[in-house]
């Protein structure tokens, strides 16, 4: 049942004050459950080399102390049980040294995907559903379920860190726990905050960021409700650390100064992902500066695109629209794979879409509720960012963003409503294959003179062999040009100028040194066409002259004109003098 959030205003009917939680060492995070083995313990499969007799094989098996369990005669593969207490990997190493053995391997356990035992998992359509308009979470969990070392800041209405499904993943500030430091009224870690165990409440100016609204806890659950614990729901991360930072009050609103405090606290205390399921308030240079600071601390700032159903390219929605390159703006999609009717969008200002309609998650007091909004889409993306950081721990903030944006499931509803043209996909974001994203799209003007500059960003878990731009004019065959590296993960090439009215299409191919490849979506623009026209994506023209060169050119021209005028006047004067003499 949905719990209403309200303020009681009749003094005689006020609800009991929320019980403050005693911050004590007994509330330590439960140690994460050990990862399930991906092979049958105590068993291996052995294949002997051709020519090995049955007696010879039996002799080897008994020499290693193995117990034969099963023989696959067609394959000549033996399934053997190891002596009690023998490690599978140690046994495999021993087998490799035997000249008669062709190969030995674990008896691997195969599953369709890694599903958690959380009883309400089936209701989490955003993580998995039959229509596959989900983020492919179970497939991602095959590779990564998250790490407690990855710190995600929830900048919101607080978090119910006592919730049965959040408690295990609530961050405990290591500098403020143990030996009674939780409540000793001392800033033990000298970070400027006293007894900040779970985070900080910047709205109430105290150390208890308990959620008094429900929104922050819901967001936290999508990112990191404890997985496979047999309770409630599961987050995108089974394990991670949630830092609770409260600046939105019980009625869900707050101010810029408190938001800035949250961002600075998160960045200074090691958060790699900042989830911002809030918006409004217009442009604030100070807030932008705070986000810029978080960028210098290698944090990804994930923000809700907004719920007004409008185009953020035309009407910015902050903080999602700040032009800092660690900001990811997230639109919401529904379970039919469409852009949610309320969701803001933006061909160049919104990065991708994620599930945001009827999302079930944790709410205060061990309850669970379904909410809708880009607030709900944002933590899906934050959660995947945390998974990526757990899987590729050396990643920079921008590399994390390239992985998220480059791995979207492309879909028509998002082609002209998001920059990268698709829905979030966690499994693809963790892929070892190269990714290409943030390819230059529509801009304000086009010009037949050209050239048209195309930028793209690419990443690979190994090294990138080549990044190529292919373009075609009209229905002609494509021309490929090598894109030059202009910065880490950033590449650039130019398409030469084309006659007005030409239809130009282009895409970017990336190949790594292992032969893996990736291709961007195909983009189109019409030379001299109207910006924003359906089906075409006119791009900006790079200036062929720098500003200084243009100024100099104008000055030289003015000087030449002045000289010409001067010369003409002298000539006229000379002629008139000659005429007078005559």
């Amino acid at each position: 049942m949905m719990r209403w959030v309200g303020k009681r205003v009749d003094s005689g009917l006020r609800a009991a004050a929320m019980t403050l939680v005693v911050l004590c060492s007994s509330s330590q995070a439960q140690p994460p459950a050990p990862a399930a083995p991906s092979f049958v313990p105590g068993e291996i499969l052995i294949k002997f080399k051709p020519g090995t007799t049955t007696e010879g094989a039996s002799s080897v098996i008994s020499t290693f102390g193995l117990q034969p369990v099963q023989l696959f005669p067609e394959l000549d593969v033996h399934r053997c049980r190891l002596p009690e207490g023998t490690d599978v990997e140690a046994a495999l190493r021993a087998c490799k040294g035997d000249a008669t053995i062709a190969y030995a391997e674990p008896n691997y356990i195969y599953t369709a995907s890694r599903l958690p035992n959380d009883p309400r998992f089936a209701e989490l359509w955003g993580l998995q559903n039959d229509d596959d308009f989900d983020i492919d979470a179970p497939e991602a969990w095959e590779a990564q379920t998250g790490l407690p070392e990855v710190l995600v800041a929830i900048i919101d209405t607080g978090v119910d860190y006592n919730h049965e499904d959040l408690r295990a993943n609530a961050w405990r500030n290591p500098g403020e726990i143990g030996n009674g430091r939780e409540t000793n009224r001392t800033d033990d870690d000298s970070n400027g905050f006293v007894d900040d165990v779970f985070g900080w409440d910047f709205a109430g100016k105290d150390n208890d960021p308990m959620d008094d609204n429900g929104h922050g806890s819901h967001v936290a659950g999508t990112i990191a409700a404890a997985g496979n614990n047999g309770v409630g729901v599961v987050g995108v991360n089974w394990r991670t650390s949630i830092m609770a930072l409260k600046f939105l009050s019980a009625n869900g609103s707050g101010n810029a100064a408190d938001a800035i405090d949250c961002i600075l606290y998160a960045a200074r205390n090691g958060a790699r992902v900042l989830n911002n399921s809030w918006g409004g308030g217009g442009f604030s240079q100070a807030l932008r500066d705070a986000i810029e600071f978080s960028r210098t601390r290698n944090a990804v700032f994930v923000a809700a695109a907004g719920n007004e159903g409008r185009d953020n390219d035309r009407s910015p929605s902050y903080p999602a629209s700040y032009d800092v390159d660690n900001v990811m703006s997230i639109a919401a999609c529904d379970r039919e794979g469409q852009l949610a009717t309320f969701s803001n969008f933006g061909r160049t200002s919104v990065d991708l879409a994620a599930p945001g309609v009827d999302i079930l998650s944790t709410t205060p007091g061990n309850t669970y509720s379904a909410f809708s909004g880009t607030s709900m889409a944002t933590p899906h993306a934050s959660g995947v960012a945390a998974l990526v950081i757990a899987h590729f721990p050396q990643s920079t903030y921008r590399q994390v963003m390239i992985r998220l944006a480059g791995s979207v499931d492309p879909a028509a509803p998002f082609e002209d409503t998001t920059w990268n043209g698709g829905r979030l996909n966690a499994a693809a974001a963790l892929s070892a294959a190269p990714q290409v994203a943030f390819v230059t799209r529509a801009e304000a003007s086009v010009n037949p003179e050209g050239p048209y500059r195309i930028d793209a960003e690419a990443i690979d878990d190994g090294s990138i062999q080549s990044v190529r731009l292919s373009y075609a004019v009209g229905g002609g065959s494509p021309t490929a040009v090598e894109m030059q590296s202009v910065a880490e993960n950033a590449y650039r090439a130019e398409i030469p100028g084309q006659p007005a009215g030409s239809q130009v299409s282009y895409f970017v191919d990336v190949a790594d040194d292992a032969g893996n490849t990736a291709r961007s979506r195909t983009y189109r623009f019409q030379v001299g066409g109207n910006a924003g026209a359906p089906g075409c994506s006119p791009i900006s023209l790079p200036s062929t002259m720098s500003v200084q060169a243009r100024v100099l050119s104008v000055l030289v021209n003015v000087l030449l004109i002045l000289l010409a005028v001067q010369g003409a006047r002298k000539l006229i004067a000379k002629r008139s003098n000659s005429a007078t003499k005559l």
Partner: protein
Amino acid sequence: MDSRSQSGARPRLYRAAGALAGSGFSRPLLCVATTCGLLATIACRSYEPERLAFASIVEGARPASGDAPGSTGVAYRTFFDARAWSEFWQGSFAEAVPPVRFEEEFVLCLELGTKPSGGYGVEVRDVEFEARTGELQVILELLEPGADEMVIQILTAPYSMVRVRAPRAAFDRRPPPIRFRRQVGSERRPIEGRCLDTGASEPR
């Protein structure tokens, strides 16, 4: 109860009659004039809505599910007995059922349509009863996020519940027809109301 004062019309005709008495009119004429004045006053009073005392029980915004924001107007329910009120409250809130003296009060629950974010709200400013038509008129103030306010990006449905002091017996039709108006500055603009009570009577 944080009651609102009831203001009746001042019997201005009394003062007019006094003035006439001092100006040399004959006593019978004065009596007739006074009686006419009294009747006129009573007639006027019966056409002027009576302001009812009310108190807020709870107000806030519940998260709205689905993806269809933008509906306008207000949906409402009324409760005239403890059992129905108790069932309704317990279906939505974990706290104890707020007491209501149903012998002299009823409960009015309002909910606005879906809004795109937090920061929206609805507050009851006035409740008036027009005896002539048997209608209630509820004056609302609709709250929106300020230009510099940062709010949660979740669909919400703002609501408000009030106790209104008026015995059930005061209404010919139960639940009574209700008209809603939004206070905008000094202006009161009509808002569409949709009754969710079963067997509700619509405003005429």
